[in-house]
């Protein structure tokens, strides 16, 4: 019964208010749980993206190393038979000067092949000196850290017919 003179609710009125409040609280809790779930999901997704990115960088580094060690324009050949894991000494020099002179848009072409990387051949000459031939060097990324790959290569001098041991170093900047 409503006591209009005093304008106060009795127990029934309080029950109704409590019930409405209950529904609102339940919905708020559900929304909070959804938000917490979403935050957790996004964080885990972030982690897996970072891992995948690192994997792709490693695959890319290996791909560039394989391509660099297999370039036909550097391989030595004898009577039209190409020799694997052997580079021609004069082809190395010619490769470097073609890129430096940007003949036939060579710089852009090899950028698409090697991206941000540095390719060096360290040749151990007979008189114990080491000749370094930098075939390609380009890095326009902010990251200066690199993943080096080393591949042993034989260098052949077609004029003197001498062979030198060397290391092909491929650094990729991720």
């Amino acid at each position, binding site marked *: 019964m409503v006591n209009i003179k005093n304008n106060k609710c009795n127990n029934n009125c309080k029950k109704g208010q409590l019930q409405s409040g209950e529904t609102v609280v339940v*919905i708020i809790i559900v929304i909070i749980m959804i938000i917490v779930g979403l935050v957790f999901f996004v964080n885990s997704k972030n982690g897996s993206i970072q891992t995948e990115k690192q994997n792709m960088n490693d695959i890319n580094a*290996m791909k560039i190393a394989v*391509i660099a060690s297999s370039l036909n*324009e550097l391989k030595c050949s004898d009577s039209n038979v190409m020799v694997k894991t052997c580079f021609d000494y004069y082809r190395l*020099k*010619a490769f470097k000067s073609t890129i430096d002179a940007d003949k036939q*848009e060579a710089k852009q072409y090899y950028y698409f092949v090697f991206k941000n990387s540095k390719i060096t051949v360290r040749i151990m000459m007979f008189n114990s000196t080491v000749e370094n031939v930098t075939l390609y060097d380009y890095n326009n990324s902010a990251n200066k850290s690199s993943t080096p790959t080393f591949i042993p290569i034989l260098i052949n001098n077609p*004029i003197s017919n001498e062979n030198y041991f060397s290391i092909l170093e491929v650094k990729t900047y991720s």
Partner: protein
Amino acid sequence: MKQELKSAVSKKVHEEKVQNKLQNKSKNKIYIPAQKKAQIEITFHWIFVLIAGAAILIFFIVLTNNQKKDSVQELSTIIGGRMAALLATIQQNPDSFQTLEMLNAEMVFRCEQDGHTYSLKDGKSRIQLETEIIFTPQIVGGSKPIVWTKLYAAPYPVTQILYLSDEKTQYIFIDDPLTKPYYDMLPVNFERMLVVKDNIKNITDQGFRQYIIVAPSYKIGLNSLQNAVLRKSKIVDLSKTNTEKKVLFYDPNSDEINKYQNSSAWKPYVNDEVLLGAIISGDEKLYGCTMEKLMHTARIVGEINLNRTNQIANIEKTIPECNYFFGTGVLQDYINITITNSTYPTNNYNNLNSYIEAINTMNKDMAKPNCPTIY
């Protein structure tokens, strides 16, 4: 007593007045009985729950849709990256053949304004094939991919050509002296079939995604093929391979049938390795994109060989046996002409082929007096 009666009456009148006042007040206000109030409250309660529930449901539906799109994008990027690395590695093995693991997704190769690209069939992002020399049909995937490499030489080794197809593309060769040699060159693992001219009408659709018909003339294919096969077909016409070293890519489902009457519809090729690429792709645009890249690579490798020849010439021209090759500049001229003629599009490769042959002959001659050879 009179006074007492009077006060009792006035009290009663006052009470009645108060009650009347109350009744009037309640007449002016909306008076809802307690039971009806509860019913309305419950109704509003349910409306509120429905709205909140619908909002949460819509939120989850939108989230799921976005997640689905993102996962397709992610898959597209991962497959693209892995495929690029795999193809680059396979390409370094000359004259090799491989059947790869089942590729569940389908990749679409395009040659458009943004260059030579590939993407997943439902994916949005496209991966550029900037320098890869790869001949493929338009769609590869949904089955085991087949990879074949051959060396392109001009005549010094230039690059490995990669031929990529799959088990859902069938190559039908119409038996003829023009087509038979290329049927024999194609590895057996490719889905290939040799058909006598009289049996063309008996070719039925066996569920392949695409048929690439290699014919001595595109008209042979058109007149005889069943519609179910023709709908999925492209024809590679080899009628001018012996005379002009040109090939025609005929699409029987194209709207521009008249363009095939022009001589410009015929595309030149350099040698058998390139013609095999035309057969594998069966598509004029994709062939054109790959040829442009191949010729660009040939020019760069030519420059490297020219530079090397000049370096060696400075040392070797003093040796009498090698003076003819390095001292006269003939070799450098031949290489220069080869570089200049390595272009696409072009009218023909007759000039290129003759100087390739000249360098080849000179290389053999250089080997005899033990001069350093070009390759």
